[in-house]
């Protein structure tokens, strides 16, 4: 691995595994795509796991809390994420809860740990849209009230637009475009972003076929030369196929495309 990753001023790529486990959870916290399967311990109750989270936080911050105080905080936080009947849920095991509830338990754990950065990897794909709306609104609220930064990983551009201030579009392991959500959606700079936006169905089939990006994403074992999107790009010209463009600033955004210099 090359380069470095700085999280609030600390280069985490040089930390040892021991030091990292101190940073994980309280500095940054990750929510995964399929919470019922891999985010909670299936043989411990929800209550046990949430109490564990809070005692880890106290240990790191050198705080002392009684069992009673800890439990009160857990119950209060569960109300924040709108888990119905917190006292009953505390006694349950993860498999007794629905997917949406488990996801909210995981978010609740994140709130108890109070991380500065929350990384959410497609946290709503396993949920239905009505529950997705609840989770997204909750995340927005937390971002505003607790000043918690969020990296939200998704394939749904409209969801990204609703949630984010800034959108980064990636393709074949590279950042293709990075800019304020409003600009990126209204005036996409990269042909890939433009293609993605155009291929979202908005009408019915009688309005004619959808625009679609030809071909399929490249395999990492045989990446094309030059710009990685060039074989599928409709504006492709000479330079694109031989030389890979660099990520350059363009207004308040940055973009990796020869069309934009």
């Amino acid at each position: 691995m090359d380069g470095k990753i700085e999280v609030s001023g600390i280069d985490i790529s040089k930390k040892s595994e021991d030091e990292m486990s101190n940073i994980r959870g309280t500095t940054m916290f990750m929510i995964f795509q399929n919470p019922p399967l891999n985010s909670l311990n299936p043989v411990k109750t929800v209550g046990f796991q949430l109490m564990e989270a809070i005692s880890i936080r106290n240990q790191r911050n050198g705080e002392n809390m009684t069992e009673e105080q800890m439990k009160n905080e857990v119950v209060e936080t569960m109300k924040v994420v709108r888990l119905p009947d917190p006292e009953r849920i505390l006694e349950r095991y993860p498999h007794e809860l629905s997917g949406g509830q488990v996801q909210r338990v995981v978010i609740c754990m994140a709130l108890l740990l109070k991380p500065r950065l929350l990384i959410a990897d497609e946290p709503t794909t396993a949920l239905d849209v009505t529950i997705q709306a609840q989770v997204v609104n909750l995340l927005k609220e937390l971002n505003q009230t607790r000043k918690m930064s969020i990296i939200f990983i998704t394939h749904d551009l409209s969801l990204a637009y609703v949630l984010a201030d800034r959108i980064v579009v990636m393709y074949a392991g590279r950042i293709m475009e990075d800019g304020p959500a409003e600009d990126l959606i209204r005036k996409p700079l990269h042909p890939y972003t433009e293609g993605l936006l155009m291929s979202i169905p908005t009408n019915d089939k009688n309005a004619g076929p959808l625009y679609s990006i030809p071909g399929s994403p490249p395999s990492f074992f045989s990446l094309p030369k030059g710009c990685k999107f060039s074989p599928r790009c409709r504006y492709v010209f000479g330079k694109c196929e031989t030389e890979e463009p660099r990520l350059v600033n363009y207004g308040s955004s940055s973009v990796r495309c020869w069309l934009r210099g």
Partner: protein
Amino acid sequence: MDEIIKFVGLKKYYMAYQRQLLDVIFRRKPVYVRALDDVNLSIVRGSVTSVVGESGSGKTTMGKIITTMEKPTGGTYYFEGKEVRGSYVEEVRKRVSMVFQNPATSVNPRMKIKAIVSEPLGGRFDENRVAEVLESVGLRYSDVKDKQPRELSGGQIQRVAIARALVKNPELLVLDEPTSALDESVQAQMLNLFVELQKQYSVTYVFITHNIAVAKYISDTMVVTYAGKVFEYGSTEKILNSPKHPYTQLLISSVPSFESKKLRSPTGGDVPSLIDPPPGCRFKNRCPFAMETCSKEPPIAEINGVKVACWLYVGGNAVENPN
């Protein structure tokens, strides 16, 4: 109007766990998961019907019953006006086909593409037919015939799965979330392909999806399912323009769009458990319009050609779009 499929009071219950000897001895009642409960539905030949709803609402079970992979626990399933049972099951099976969500797990990784596609023909390898369907889904027969699935991309494997489903010229095709496992940039290609194939083969589609935008694009009629029940059923355009059932209204307003950065967040509550669902309307614990009568099973009302299972529209108290 030529009905190809009709469900009357259809039920599908799964056993929640295997009954043990002790359960039999003590005559404990078996516990059922009510995946589909009392569903009435008819599908017109040559139409595209989308089935929308969240995971666990019975969409896939419906597809499996249509393709006879599952036998209904109760009620009747008519295919072309004839009840599907006994020896007719075999015949229906020849005339319906299904495409699954995840292309990588629905084809045999060890088989060559040409063998995968010709498998439904039952041992008889008809090269012309295989080549023809593969070309019609946009693959070059000479390029792919001897390849194995791992040499193809996800979108290409899904095309192979579609070719396999079409090879016997089915009258009805069940597509179970056929685009959700694919890359976003490939989804539009697949949707165009489905529309084209439907014109070419004049096959009836049952398109299972949770994506409202996709349902809007592809379907003529729409079925909204929730916790094993059909809540609303009728023309896609009418339902999307003026959803009647409170759940459909909620569903449509929770879809994120580029128009607004605000997302309407529904009232709390959760989907009821299918093991022992509360009596009456299954949505009543989350419904903003819940009333006393909702603890009784809602009858089906018809408004402007759309069928709605909600007490709001029963008798004279129809409310025009309470939003």
